[in-house]
């Protein structure tokens, strides 16, 4: 599957979630910004959605879709490598009925590193993403929430068969605005 196909599939998933959420009043849908700092590497910023349903395990299971890139972080006006993360994740929320929640989850997706020059065509550019994540989520009284988490990329890059800038450990902070709540 090429990179363009994956991008379209990801956008399709993102917007199908939006339409489901708008059709069904039992869904919560948050959209917002996410910033990610990889340990000993880049800042990557992007967008994220969070969706949960009363009918699916009483909103304890959350589906997340995110797009993060160093293009909007470390690579902005610098020589850092431009790389993109397309992430689909599932979180399990503890204390789901409370404002302060703890969560743990698994993420997967697609990683692409833009190496720009044909000299580096011999190097791996793409990889499957697979990470485990844990963090905290706080819902404000107004329709916003913030989440902080730490994650470990189980697939990380050795530069031989996976891109060398796929590092193992990262932290994220996200801010969501709930379109439907």
């Amino acid at each position: 599957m090429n990179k363009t196909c994956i991008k379209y599939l990801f956008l399709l998933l993102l917007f199908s979630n939006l339409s489901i959420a708008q059709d069904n009043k039992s869904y919560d849908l948050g959209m917002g910004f996410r910033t990610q700092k990889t340990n000993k590497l880049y800042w990557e910023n992007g967008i994220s959605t969070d969706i949960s349903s009363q009918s699916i395990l009483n909103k304890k299971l959350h589906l997340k879709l995110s797009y993060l890139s160093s293009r909007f972080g470390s690579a902005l006006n610098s020589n850092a490598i431009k790389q993109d993360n397309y992430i689909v994740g599932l979180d399990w929320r503890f204390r789901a009925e409370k404002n302060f929640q703890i969560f743990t989850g698994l993420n997967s997706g697609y990683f692409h590193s833009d190496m720009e020059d044909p000299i580096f065509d011999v190097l791996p550019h793409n990889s499957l993403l697979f990470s485990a994540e844990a963090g905290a989520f706080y819902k404000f009284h107004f329709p916003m929430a913030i989440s902080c988490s730490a994650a470990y990329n189980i697939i990380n890059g050795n530069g031989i068969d996976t891109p060398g800038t796929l590092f193992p450990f990262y932290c994220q902070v996200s801010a969501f605005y709930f379109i439907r709540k």
Partner: protein
Amino acid sequence: MKVFYIYLSLLIFLFACNSTPEIDDATMLDGKIISDSSLIHPEKYLISAKYPSPDASQLNKPVLIAAHGYSATTFEWDEIRTFSNTDASFLVSQVLLGGHGRDYADFKAATWKDWQSSIIIEYEKLEKLGYKKIYLAGSSTGAPLIINLVKEGYFNQHIAPKGIFLIDPIIVPANKTLTLVGLLGPILGYSTTELASGEKGKWYVYRPQETLQQLMNLIDMTRKDLEDGITLPQSSFMKVYKSSVDDVADPISALMIYKGIKTATGAKIEVEMEKSKLHVFTRLAGRDNYALADSILQQKVFLEMRNKMIQ
């Protein structure tokens, strides 16, 4: 019972933190008997010691200051010295990085600034003796040490090197566990390396976590410097040779250097990705196995370096 578990946990923690490996003095560089030969016979390795009063013909030759990698010794560059002897068209000064080539305690105590100091000392000695055609070569960790000199503007106060060669430079480690050394290092104390029989006594077997943290600090700082951009001194060139499969220095390091360093005129530097699976492919001595293609590549690169220096 609860107290027993607390004591047991403490015992396990202390055992895990044991930072003194068992060193065999007779066979290991880490011990107190074996040290790098350049400490005993500097005149065989350093041009400043070999020719303390150089004549005009010596001063007119290009001198290559060759810096080895983390935990290695001058041995890493022995083969280019042998190569240089074939036509004596250039001189090779093999520097032993500070803290290296001595015992485990000396290695453990050294910072990356100490490692770099040997390059500076030899550079300034050669400059003072009157050498004008100075070139630098850095393999693996030798590369970020040299890049740091450029970034810090060291050559603004000194004669600029004519050229810089980097062999398998490390900016990103292939083993990403190194990025967690700040967290895991104090628990583990040190890491152990398997050496080929021909490498014993030439590389450290034990790598203290303090030195791994120094290495991580150096390469992380160099990565950030490259992101900000580095300009070579006027009329200096840089050529990077990188194995495309390298289980020590991630090949993406070459891309970071390519993007991060420009010549004084704003031109791109030269990078060549090599069909090799060896880390520091220019060093074949001491390895258990290597292919004919590796020998050919080594000689090709040595010849190209020579040609660039004598042209």
